[in-house]
């Protein structure tokens, strides 16, 4: 078995692969010359089974029934998303037709040729129009070199400018600090000062952390901060993580390290009990950094009438507030039923489910024409909309994620070595070097795999 068996398997898979539409280098909406491709025809021709790998809480059984009732020729087979299962299905040569993914994963999947170019479908769609797509969809655009331009390989389901802030007014009152105005952005340095003022302790016990954020995503925040000065965490060709030789990057990393060391944010040695959003709704955080979607849950019994949304802070004076997740869906290159899958794709992202999502207030719609559906009744909702409108203009630039590694590599390394640095087992410089080494090893492997 061994090599021979795997080789045979590989050949077998290649043999049953569908001819993928070649990506046109320039992707103007009018370039519908995809004559050699699978022609996306009008709805009546689409039928069969669509294997849909997603999450039950984002695709209810009611929605499934509705869709199948409206499209009797199509049967949806839903599978709850699971990373291992996704791998196994790919290995067995049977990937799902549509699956859920996030913007940062796209470069990695593109490099492995897992995604199907959907531009031909978009070109003739009457529901998903090119100029109606919100900027978050840039994460799914690729011209062969950069993310953000080119053909569409998927679409976002909803999004938020993710760097906005939510403040707990009561925390400010207790600390005797005035709540910042919501019409101009703070700087990150000001936030650091606020954080230490808002932190409340009682002996060894921390009763409130001044600042909170999603610990799994600060590498993305760092990328956004660096992008203000035109720099990146990675070398230009993504061949390595470049922090220690980049003074600006060192400053950004130091910023987050110092916050953790000062114990004004939750950190490996003083963790908060739940994730930052949950902590905020229980009054355990002074300020939290989350996108517009957080407004749907920010007001709990504890924080009601005490929350205010603030614009995204800046690091170097340049305002940037894209999304850093861009959760959406894509079609696999080896999908067995692209036409039927597209019908589902279109309905999910532009039809009733999208409208319902927009009205729920859990995110900004992926279609600009649906922006007006966002809720704006309560004073809090209105205040959030006001801040949001101010942020939308700064939301276009997609963050550039590394195509050779999976999205979690950097942050896992960061958290791993952060713990040791905080315990005093290594210095800050050593920590950076260790993060780099671990990431670069993974990048090298990724590059060699694509050979």
């Amino acid at each position: 078995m061994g090599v021979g068996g795997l080789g045979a398997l590989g050949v077998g898979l290649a043999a049953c692969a569908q001819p993928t539409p070649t990506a046109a280098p320039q992707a103007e909406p009018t370039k519908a010359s995809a004559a050699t491709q699978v022609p996306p025809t009008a709805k009546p021709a689409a039928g069969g089974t669509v294997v849909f790998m997603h999450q039950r809480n984002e695709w209810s059984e009611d929605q499934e029934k509705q869709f199948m009732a409206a499209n009797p020729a199509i049967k949806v087979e839903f599978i709850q998303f699971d990373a291992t299962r996704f791998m196994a299905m790919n290995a067995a040569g049977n990937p799902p037709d549509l699956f859920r993914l996030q913007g940062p994963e796209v470069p990695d999947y593109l490099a492995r040729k897992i995604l199907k170019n959907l531009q031909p479908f978009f070109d003739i769609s009457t529901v998903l129009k090119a100029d109606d797509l919100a900027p978050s969809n840039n994460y799914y655009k690729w011209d062969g070199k950069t993310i953000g331009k080119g053909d569409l390989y998927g679409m976002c389901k909803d999004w938020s400018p993710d760097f906005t802030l939510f403040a707990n007014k009561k925390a400010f009152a207790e600390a005797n600090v005035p709540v910042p105005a919501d019409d101009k952005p703070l700087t990150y340095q000001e936030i650091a000062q606020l954080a230490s003022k808002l932190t409340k302790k009682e002996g060894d016990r921390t009763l409130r952390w001044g600042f909170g954020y999603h610990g799994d995503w600060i590498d993305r925040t760092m990328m956004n901060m660096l992008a203000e000065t035109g720099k990146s965490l990675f070398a230009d060709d993504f061949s390595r993580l470049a922090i220690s030789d980049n003074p600006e990057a060192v400053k950004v990393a130091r910023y987050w390290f110092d916050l953790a060391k000062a114990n004004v944010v939750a950190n490996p040695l003083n963790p908060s009990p739940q994730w930052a959003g949950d902590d905020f709704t229980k009054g355990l955080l002074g300020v939290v950094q989350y996108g517009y979607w957080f407004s749907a849950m920010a007001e709990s019994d504890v924080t009601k009438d005490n929350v205010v949304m603030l614009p995204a802070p800046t690091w170097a004076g340049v305002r940037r507030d894209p999304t850093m997740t861009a959760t959406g869906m894509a079609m696999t290159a080896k999908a067995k039923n692209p036409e039927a899958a597209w019908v589902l794709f279109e309905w999910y992202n532009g039809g009733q489910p999208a409208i319902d999502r927009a009205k729920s207030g859990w995110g900004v719609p992926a279609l600009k024409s649906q922006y007006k559906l966002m809720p704006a009744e309560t004073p809090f909702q209105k205040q959030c909309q006001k801040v949001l409108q101010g942020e939308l203009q700064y939301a276009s630039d997609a963050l550039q994620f590394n195509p050779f590694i999976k999205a979690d590599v950097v942050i896992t390394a960061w958290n791993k070595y952060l713990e040791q640095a905080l315990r005093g087992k290594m210095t800050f410089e050593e920590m950076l070097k260790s993060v780099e080494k671990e990431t670069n090893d993974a990048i090298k492997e990724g590059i060699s795999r694509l050979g």
Partner: protein
Amino acid sequence: MTAVQLSGAGRRRGWRFRGRAWREAVSFYGFIAPWLIGFVLLSVVPLVFGLGISLTNYDGLNLDSVRFLGLQNYARALHDAEALFGISRTAVFTALYVPLALTFALFLAGLLNQDVRGRGAFRTLFYLPYVIPIGAAAWVWRLVADGNYGLLNALLHLLRPGTAVQWLANYATQVLVVFVVWTSVGGAMVILLAGLQGIPKELREAALIDGATPLRTFFAITVPLLTPVLFFQLVMNLIGALQTMVAPMLLIPQPMGFNVLPPQDNRLYMTFVYFEIFTKARFGYGTALLWILFLLVLALTLVVFATSRFWVHYEVE
């Protein structure tokens, strides 16, 4: 004793002997047939495949870019500092967990084998943590052990105000051991209880009449007869402890936000392998690491089996 008689007797005895052994072998294979067939059809192929994966650089997704690496993954593992660290942490965990779990389960089983009123209810109570889904159990433990808001520190606060010990971050392995013992003792107790039933009451009562204390009876009579089942539990505990993967991840102090990996002390071997496979996409390497673990577990189990000759009492060998 003529030659004829001798040869005749020999022939008859020989034939009967072969017949008996033959029938026993047939019977043996008959009894294990369902297992053997299932093993060959359902397990061997995936096993071989799994072995094959460990010889490549498979990343979990693309089979087209797979390259054969021979034993490179295995050689790499020997130099991988993190893998070796994982083994050391797993060894520590196992050394703490196994004796504790076994003793506690034996103690409980012994206690609940007594004629105590409501022992059915007690057995059920101690069994409870075993059936609670481990995710939920860990979640509750994380809450109770939370540094700033946990019940445990709240109680300590009554004794010494301002206490906020970070149990999960600073005493990670201790908490892990106690947690895993807590979740697993119910199952072990069931097995040991069943084992205790196999010990004839008469033997115990005879000893008691002879003047031995219950404790002495327990150790002199009950435990020796319980050794086959104890042996089972020991081996299972050992294998389970060496393969521990999920519990450390569930006890990460702030899993949904901050710490993607467990605190350093809890980076057990299998947990490390999990991250290699799912975060670093090193499926081939990860599988090789798992096979290495298999060899270690096998070696250890063989050693335990070898020692069993000295302390396990079987009726039939």
